[in-house]
């Protein structure tokens, strides 16, 4: 069965500091993986996704993530955090079916950015 684990419920970083949000997945086949961001009162916006190819993927807003098959991980990183990055971050794994794709989300990591 597919599952996603985000071990960090809440992270606080200083503005300008680097950031890494952890995500581990469980999936029987080659996964495709996503990171979404949810700002307060907003929907989920796609930051980046991994499907195949280069294991380091670049996304919007300066984010990147690295797929490591050996560790079943897809950690999200940003070299220098901005105050506007404060939000909830969700990792998701996609499963392809004949009837469409299914998406399974982690519990999310809440990011607080302090001045």
């Amino acid at each position, binding site marked *: 069965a597919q599952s996603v684990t985000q071990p960090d419920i809440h992270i606080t970083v200083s503005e300008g500091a680097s950031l890494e949000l952890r995500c581990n997945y469980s999936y029987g086949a080659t996964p495709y993986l996503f990171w979404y961001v949810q700002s307060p009162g907003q*929907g989920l916006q796609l930051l980046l996704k991994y499907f195949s190819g280069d294991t380091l993927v670049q996304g919007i807003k300066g984010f990147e993530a690295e797929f490591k098959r050996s560790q079943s991980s897809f950690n999200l990183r940003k070299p220098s955090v901005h105050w506007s990055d404060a939000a909830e971050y*969700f990792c998701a794994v996609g499963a*392809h079916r004949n*009837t*469409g794709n299914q998406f399974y*989300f*982690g519990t999310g990591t809440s990011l607080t950015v302090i001045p």
Partner: protein
Amino acid sequence: EPEVTQTPSHQVTQMGQEVILRCVPISNHLYFYWYRQILGQKVEFLVSFYNNEISEKSEIFDDQFSVERPDGSNFTLKIRSTKLEDSAMYFCASSDGGFGTEAFFGQGTRLTVV
């Protein structure tokens, strides 16, 4: 840029009442989803819909829930008799279903059952 739109943004209803949450998916998408997020908790899958029928549903999606695509553009979630525990943010999403493609989410409808 095409987007998924949901109405209303916020709905307050009395326990036991029926509610219909509406969504307009991206026009060329064929796969539609409803997710729920109880305040402070994870995003939970409710149901997926393709070719005018439910393709998959979770344990949450019991007999009080139903989905419909009444015309070529709208996708609705009906809760027949709301309970207090149905209070949550409900997200509609759509996808073109291609291998490796993502789901596009609406802004959500916050449902408050009183």
